[in-house]
């Protein structure tokens, strides 16, 4: 992050010696801020000043890698608190929680459930990425290691929730190649835990009784040379957890306090206990507000469909609109003879249009053109959704697959009708209403008039 002139000026000796070639320290600071001069041109800069400067120009939040191979995930590395300021870069990862306190069959059932949710949505594979293996108080090393082994068998990246140094060591023996997170350091054991994590080459999770304790522990760990950390911001209550999670992220990104410049773990499973609906609400809350790993009591399709949709939206780069893959999408049980509706590949358009078409209940083939991910009017104006491009796409991709020769085009590009009819002989071109919300009625009318 670039420093402004005043921050640099505060570090200068303010003696206006002119040895840097500038008439004043003020002018020097300004040139450094603009990038026109190197800081080293000032012969009187103290080492302390130089250190604080290099610290200040480091990224505000570290990128931390966890997991191995296909299951390697980057956490953190964010530079803004709001997506409109630039973009979020590392999406929230979800873990399902198991614990030694659970009965064996219950834990196994939970682990079996982990792989159930697995689907693609707009080019992104949606699944539970992690398993949180918690070591209940009083559990033996053997019992914990057994559970860790079973969890590792899911192939998911593990987060080991364990405070006992010896048990942690034993667990890492069987899973360290998968690069799990060792979530076990606190004020009482951080030195030993840090050594265990570093020896195994894994990321260390740090927690504290409150933010001050967490802060001190992170500072001590950094001093000892371990900067491969994630911070468990889970508190005793929902309110405290929310405050911790926001304060940590804000300290790093807004107030440039790099001690808190690490990704977070939020254990929703512990906060929501047996209330599954509360867990859904909190999963949403901590996806919106700064959870890097969110630990959930379980994940089925009901939990997943809204949550992964939310995450996908939230982590979309505002500069790059989401696109759906061009092609034929059969809706409501459509076959090759069903009527065709065509539109652009802008994800929002696709969702709005397909939603309305599904509501109509009419079997329809929705044909998505390659329009550069732009909306109907924008892509039309840019020449990416033209009679030429549509005709080419239909000849190459549609005519061989579908038998129906009736195509409904968006009302906003009604002007294309004539051109399309001449470029696609044998096709009947029908103009839809201008707004998607009118589609249901449009199809009902068509049905009533026997036009389908």
């Amino acid at each position, binding site marked *: 992050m670039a420093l402004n002139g005043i921050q640099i000026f505060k570090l200068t000796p303010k003696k206006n010696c002119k040895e840097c070639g500038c008439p004043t320290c003020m002018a020097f600071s300004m040139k450094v801020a603009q990038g026109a001069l190197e800081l080293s041109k000032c012969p009187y800069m103290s080492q302390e000043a130089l250190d604080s400067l290099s610290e200040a120009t480091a990224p505000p939040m570290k990128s931390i890698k966890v997991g191995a191979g296909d299951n390697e995930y980057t956490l953190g590395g964010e530079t803004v608190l709001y997506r409109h300021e630039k973009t979020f870069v590392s999406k929230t990862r979800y873990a399902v929680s198991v614990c030694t306190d659970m009965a064996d069959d219950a834990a196994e059932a939970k682990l079996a459930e982990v792989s159930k949710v697995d689907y693609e949505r707009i080019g992104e594979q949606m699944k539970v990425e992690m398993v949180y293996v918690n070591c209940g108080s009083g559990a033996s090393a053997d019992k914990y290691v057994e559970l860790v082994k079973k969890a590792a068998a899911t192939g998911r990246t593990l987060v080991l929730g364990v405070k006992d140094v010896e048990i942690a060591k034993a667990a890492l023996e069987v899973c360290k190649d998968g690069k799990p997170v060792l979530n076990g350091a606190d004020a009482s054991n951080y030195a030993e835990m840090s050594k265990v994590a570093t020896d195994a080459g894994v990321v260390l999770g740090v927690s504290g009784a409150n933010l001050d304790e967490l802060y001190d522990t992170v500072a001590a760990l950094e001093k000892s040379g371990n900067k491969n950390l994630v911070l468990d911001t889970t508190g005793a209550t929902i309110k405290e957890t929310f405050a911790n999670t926001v304060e940590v992220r804000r300290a790093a990104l807004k107030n440039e306090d790099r001690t808190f410049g690490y990704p977070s773990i939020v254990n929703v499973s512990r906060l929501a206990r047996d209330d599954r609906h509360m867990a*859904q609400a909190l999963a949403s809350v901590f996806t919106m507000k700064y959870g890097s790993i969110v630990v959930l009591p379980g994940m089925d399709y009901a939990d997943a469909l809204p949550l992964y949709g939310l995450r996908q939206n939230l982590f*979309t780069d505002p500069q790059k609109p989401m696109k759906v893959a061009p092609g034929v999408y059969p809706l409501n049980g459509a076959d090759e003879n069903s009527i065709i509706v065509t539109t652009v590949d802008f994800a929002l358009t696709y969702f709005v249009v397909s939603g309305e078409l599904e509501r109509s209940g009419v079997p329809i083939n929705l044909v998505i053109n390659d329009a550069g991910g732009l909306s109907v009017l924008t892509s039309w104006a840019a020449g990416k959704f033209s009679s030429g491009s549509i005709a080419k796409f239909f000849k190459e991709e549609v005519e061989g697959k579908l038998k129906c020769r009736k195509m409904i085009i968006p009302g906003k590009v009604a002007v294309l009708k004539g051109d399309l009819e001449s470029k696609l002989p044998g096709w009947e071109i029908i103009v839809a209403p201008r707004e998607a919300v009118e589609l249901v009625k449009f199809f009902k009318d068509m049905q009533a008039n026997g036009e389908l």
Partner: protein
Amino acid sequence: MPFNRKPQKFNASIREVEIGVGEKAIKIGGENVFPFYTFDGDLGNTPKVGVEISDLGLDNPVPGISAYYEGCTTAAEMAKKAAEMEGADFLALSLEGGDPNGANKSVDELIAVVKEVAEAVDLPLVVEGSKNVEKDSELLPKVAEALQGKNVLILSAKEENYKAIGAAAGLAYNQKVGAESAVDINLAKQLNVVTTQLGVKPESIVMNVGTATAGYGYEYVVSTMDRIKAAALSQSDATLQMPIITPVSAETWGVKESISEEADAPEWGSREERAIAMEIETAAADLMAGSNAVILRHPQSVATIAKMIKELA
């Protein structure tokens, strides 16, 4: 060195708007911090949860909703039942039956429903129009007139009909005006400006800045609300300091995840659980982005979101 907390303090706050009368009246807004940032300062009034019923009764309901309203034959009976729902702060009556492209009920018919519902409950009332611009221009001023003295929120005045609805609701009959824009921050601001220029007091305006279901272009909703709250608080933009109400259920119950029956999508499991999750997770995200009130349908969603607000506030 201890952690140096730096609370974000603003010289501005969101306006407080009161809806309803008597003991059950609610206030929304009043905060001078970002949503639920209790560690920075005063949250004002906690966000409120409304239960939505429709003049059309139940449309394709899930078992939990059918069971909840079992035995109710009129809108008034449903309203009474809805008002008892755990976590409900207000009632939202949708007059979707007025849509000329749908049931096309007459204004008189709908006003009768509105009156009946208002008589039946003492919870604050939000009345949602037919969503048809022309129909609402005629219908909503009549609603405002019929409910004089009840201090209801009329949803909504849009760019095309704010003059008729804003003047009737906000000036002639002293109700609260909902200013609706569709995820367009400049229009949200403009509507507030022109509505106040009509003479409607800023503290009589609530914004509906539009929403989407999680997964359906929801990033625009997040950024719109984030930017509105930032402008209202950090830039002290008085034209955006109105509280926000979000009709969540109208969106979430219409997507395929909430509609598809189990037979159509067996791996997805119970339709009811999917629809509840869609409603809960979208509402939670709306509240995080800055909604001061949300409108929901399922008793489970209402209870969960009300509890979540209580836990966070």
